[in-house]
């Protein structure tokens, strides 16, 4: 840490130039709730911290084309307190609400939770289920990628050198849509998921599911988008048989490890249970709007 430098650029161009200039020594600093812990325990030793919180594009929640654009460094509490976003994406908020204590959520962001690339990050499965797209800036300019393509392994992302996430685009929500995130932990608060499941679905006027996305956390090296689980719901009225086929697809997709929070077998079994409960709540919400 002895030759660490801190910069807080006010434009995207300046941030990109700083990161490009720093090569391997540059590190993005958003809310800092993971980065500062890694820095002070000397797990990372950057030469340059680029604080991106003074860049307007990285902050705030805006309505855009009937959906939302959320700055990647927006503090979690700002999302939790945004009544309109919460009404449209209650499942995303359920995940965001579990990022940590109120104090941690005062700083932590969904961009940071994603880029920290923990398999158990609570905000990631519901954001994948929502079909959100990440806007990424880097030396090659701007690009967009689905959120499920960002995490490639524990602490590893598909971001190229010098790239960072600017914002997330949450698509316009059709009528009769609902989402939900549930996780299993021994404690109700301040814990790390044993299993997490995010489900988002849309019904037609007759109550038949026309679109669904199911994402699981903490059951593989990365959060997963489970296409087979979604396919089990689409075209059905999300009845008992469909829910059971979805749960079976979830169990089949799990590639968990055994650790102090749960064995492989326990994680696989409970992934089906938690995904099913999340789908039932998403269904109720979809019917209610």
């Amino acid at each position, binding site marked *: *840490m*002895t*030759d*660490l*430098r*801190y910069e*807080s650029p006010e434009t995207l161009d300046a941030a990109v130039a700083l990161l490009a200039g720093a090569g391997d020594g540059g590190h993005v*600093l958003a*809310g*800092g*709730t993971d980065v*500062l*812990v890694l*820095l*002070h325990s000397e797990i990372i030793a950057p030469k340059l*911290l680029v*604080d991106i*919180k003074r860049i307007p594009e990285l902050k705030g929640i805006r309505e855009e084309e009937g959906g939302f654009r959320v700055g990647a460094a927006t*503090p979690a*509490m700002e999302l939790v307190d945004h009544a309109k976003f919460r009404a449209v994406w209650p499942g995303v908020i359920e995940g965001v609400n579990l990022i*940590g*204590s*109120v*104090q*941690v959520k*005062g*700083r932590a962001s969904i961009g940071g939770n994603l880029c920290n690339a923990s398999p158990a990050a609570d905000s990631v499965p519901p954001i994948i289920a929502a079909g959100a797209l990440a806007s990424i800036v880097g030396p090659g300019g701007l690009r967009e990628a689905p959120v499920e393509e960002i995490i490639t392994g524990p602490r590893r992302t598909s971001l190229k050198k010098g790239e960072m996430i600017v914002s997330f685009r949450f698509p316009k929500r059709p009528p009769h849509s609902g989402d939900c995130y549930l996780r299993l932990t021994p404690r109700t*608060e*301040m814990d790390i998921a044993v299993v997490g499941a995010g489900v988002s679905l849309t019904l037609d006027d007759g109550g038949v599911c026309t679109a669904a996305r199911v994402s699981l956390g903490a059951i593989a090296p990365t959060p997963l988008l489970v296409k087979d689980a979604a396919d089990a719901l689409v075209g059905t009225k999300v009845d008992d048989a469909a829910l059971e086929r979805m749960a079976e697809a979830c169990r089949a997709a799990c590639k968990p490890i055994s650790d102090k929070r749960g064995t492989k077998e326990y994680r696989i079994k409970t992934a089906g249970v938690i995904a099913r409960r999340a789908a039932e709540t998403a269904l109720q919400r979809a019917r209610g709007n």
Partner: protein
Amino acid sequence: MAKKAHVTVTVNGDEYEALCEPGQTLVDLLRNELELTGTKEGCSTGDCGACSVMLDGKLVCSCLVLAMEADGRSVDTIEGMATENNLHPLQRNFLELNGLQCGICTPGILIAARALLERNPDPTETEIRYWLAGNLCRCTGYDKIIRSVMAAAEEMRGA
């Protein structure tokens, strides 16, 4: 050597300036440069809440904020809670109802509890417990803390 820089920060309404290193945290700046030692540091990893302060009106862990990030910002700490002759109702109720024993967790809990009562003057017991989930106490067993907050909230609603 790391490049030091001047940081200007308003704490409890007073402006301070200090020379800080890039890796230095806000809690370190408060305690060791500004000698405002009311804010405590327990874990340094965001888990215990002892270092809770308000940064531009938002409840944060000051061990997870760099001093340089606080440049130009305003911070409220426990030192600004009481007025010259009067304790804050939260402080008084903690004293009367034994909401503290050793006191290490207390400044952080008072700051966090005040932040809750500012957005919700009439919280349920469950809401208080969830809000304070990021503040650990090794002494009280929490019940007396929760009762102290509820009593202060009631008093403040009446006032």
